[in-house]
């Protein structure tokens, strides 16, 4: 059974890509830890790890693409495996954001009001920081000598609203691209996919701009108390996902250009579009609970 039967479940032969990936992750983690402790080679190791990881991704995904081009993956069951895999991966990402949203809600509903003396926090308030007043956004932290609060926060209906519009539009353009792939209209697919990627980049540019304003003008930083903490960690991890998503969009753009997809065979496209919609939905929740209310 060295050569798989045509149409049977494809059992991948031994592969060196996973161990390359593990070495990459190790370099990243070990490098980052050393970097944090000011060891000279820390950053080098870290970036070497990133480089190896990118190399691994090209190699591994390239392998899967070539398996697919050779028709080894033309199997319903195989297709389902990939689909389930991607679904559950996105589910785990949802849970990751869930942890940070959970922290945000806990801080807004419990920890800040309790520090201000509400409910079971009365004694804590009196003993620790009797002058602290609970507000949200938190402009005055309980102990301003340790955490200086921001002067103000971002205006919901300025940049953030515009960014919402950008992401929602990109959700529409990727759907157009999907139709085009299904109908095998390559030019339309390229235009729509290109537009999606450009919107992703535009979003990121705006986000950088917003961060600059926050840091330079408003004194809103990671270290400016728990508002800055939750704001930057949530939008930051979201931004990181948009960055990855945009890179994936560009890869798919190139693959449409190369004519990799047809009516039946375009799972990579769908996986990326699922991912992009996930990033979109996270942003909507973010917009409501971080910027708006």
């Amino acid at each position, binding site marked *: 059974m060295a050569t798989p039967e045509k149409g049977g479940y494809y059992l991948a032969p031994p592969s060196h890509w996973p161990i390359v990936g593990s070495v990459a992750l190790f370099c990243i*983690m070990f490098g980052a830890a050393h970097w944090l402790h000011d060891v000279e080679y820390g950053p080098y190791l870290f970036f070497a790890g990133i480089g190896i990881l990118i190399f691994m991704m090209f190699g591994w995904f390239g392998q899967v693409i070539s398996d697919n081009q050779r028709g080894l993956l033309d199997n319903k069951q195989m297709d389902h*495996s990939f689909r389930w895999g991607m679904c559950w991966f996105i589910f785990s990402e949802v849970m990751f954001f869930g942890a940070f949203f959970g922290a945000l809600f806990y801080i807004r509903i419990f920890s800040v009001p309790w520090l201000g003396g509400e409910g079971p926090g009365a004694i804590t308030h009196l003993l620790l920081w009797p002058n602290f007043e609970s507000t949200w956004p938190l402009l005055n932290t309980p102990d301003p000598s340790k955490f200086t609060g921001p002067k103000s926060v971002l205006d919901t209906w300025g940049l953030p609203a515009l960014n919402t519009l950008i992401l929602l539009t990109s959700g529409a353009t990727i759907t157009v691209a999907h139709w085009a792939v299904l109908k095998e209209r390559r030019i339309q697919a390229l235009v729509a996919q290109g537009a999606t990627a450009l919107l992703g980049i535009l979003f990121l540019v705006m986000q950088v701009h917003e961060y600059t304003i926050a840091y330079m003008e408003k004194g809103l930083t990671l270290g400016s108390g728990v508002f800055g903490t939750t704001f930057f960690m949530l939008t930051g991890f979201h931004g990181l996902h948009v960055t990855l998503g945009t890179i994936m969009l560009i890869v798919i753009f190139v693959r449409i250009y190369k004519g990799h997809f047809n009516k039946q065979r375009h799972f990579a496209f769908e996986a990326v579009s699922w991912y992009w919609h996930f990033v979109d939905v996270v942003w909507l929740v973010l917009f409501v609970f971080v910027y708006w209310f």
Partner: protein
Amino acid sequence: MSEQNTAAIGTEEDHHHHGPDNGKGLMGYVKRWVFTTNHKDIGTLYLWTSCIMFFIAGTMALLIRTELFQPGERLLDPDFFNQMTTLHGLIMVFGVVMPAFVGLANWQIPLMIGAPDMALPRLNNWSFWILPFAFILLISTLFLPGPAPNFGWTFYAPLSTSYGPPSTDYMIFAIHLLGISSILGAINVIATILNMRAPGMGLMQMPVFIWSWLITAFLLLSIMPVLAGAVTMMLTDRHFGTSFFEAAGGGDPVLFQHVFWFFGHPEVYVLILPAFGVMSEVIPTFSRKPLFGYSFMVWAIISIALLSFIVWAHHMFTVGMPVAAQLFFMYTTMLIAVPTGIKVFNWVSTMYKGALTFETPMLFAVAFVFLFTIGGFSGLMLAITPADYQYQDTYFVVAHFHYVLVPGSIFALITGVYYWLPKWTGRMYSEALGKWHFWLSAISLNITFFPMHFLGLAGMPRRIPDYALQFTDFNVIATLGAFVFGFSQLIFLVNIIWTIRKGKPATGQVWEGAHGLEWQLPSPAPYHSWEKPPNILPHHPRENEPSY
């Protein structure tokens, strides 16, 4: 199939056929084990890794027990004692029980559902090969400047943030790697079970072991990202000025406990649900009766898993939560006793009037049912909020979770290994050594952990290297038991190695009373399990079906 049948009995020659030809020498070896995409190879790697980690973490446990043999600072520096308790816990959870169950999953899921391999073989390799690197990072903390993590396996803030030693960052990154490994592994398990079953095997025809892993994988995918979130918050609090767990900035150290235990409670089911699965395979085999109440067993697993998401704060009754919250978490926790009770009841009912025999796996299984139940009962005691005010952070808690983890998870792993080892190696283990292993383990673990209940009720705090004089006797007993338990595990190791080298050939059926697809394959199971899915599904017999 005919090829497979000729290889039914494990001979020396078979070893050459048992695996791909990767060439000779070191490179051949590397290619075989490092590049492998075979579920059996990967399962073996998981199991041996976990075995090594078991002896490392066990040694730490014995150091802890040695220090506690007599009151006073005897052997270990208190700070080192704290490092030992921390690493013992972390390694046992993430390095022993989790990888070992993933190893069982890797070996058994394809065999038991009639699949040729796991759904995503390359990803499967990656899930495993992240682990050794994670353990290097974790254990490196012992050799870095400053102390290793010394705040307990729960790494509560601010002990792990403001007051954590520098090595904490290495632990954080190790946990990130462990999380990635678990998530990828869980994705594979879930995709395999949902997608690779032999035609005709519906969800409610799956063996309970498969069900238990389906639910466990779901739990892993739900909680490992939350753990990643928790350690990320720690990292940014430590280095980037965030104030998640800093009241001065508006955060709350208690928030850490909420996030951690949202992961931590379902995590204990990750450690025990596959154990339930193993029991539900082994007990019917040696009772020569179908599992009592199959669908109840399945629904019990599902309800335990769902309930596990709304009980986490029972670990935090004394941190100052509103009373309403304490009551909520008390009642939800007690509710879990219902499905768990169903499971115990059904195992006992399976044995009732069965034609019982007590081979080694069955001995461990019966001990599991008894001793795990003791751990379950002490868990119920701990769930009672007002009582917990007394028990919190005492040896009673230590006794409780060691009763569910040692004769629970660890015994289930041992059971699974004895039960399936003949299928994996094609050889029978030594029943005599198995019995010695069982009796020494079962007796010594009770000598070790039972006295801890009394110590805890009398008020001995956990995680402290010294104690008041009146606790001495029970501590002496516990330490003696621990050493016997620890060294008894060497018998297990010897037995496994002996089986691989010299064991008598095993038949395909192995156990007279065993049902299920894995027993239709020859022993050792061929390198690719089910190249063609089995045509006729063996009837996985159910209690309420007259055909059996």
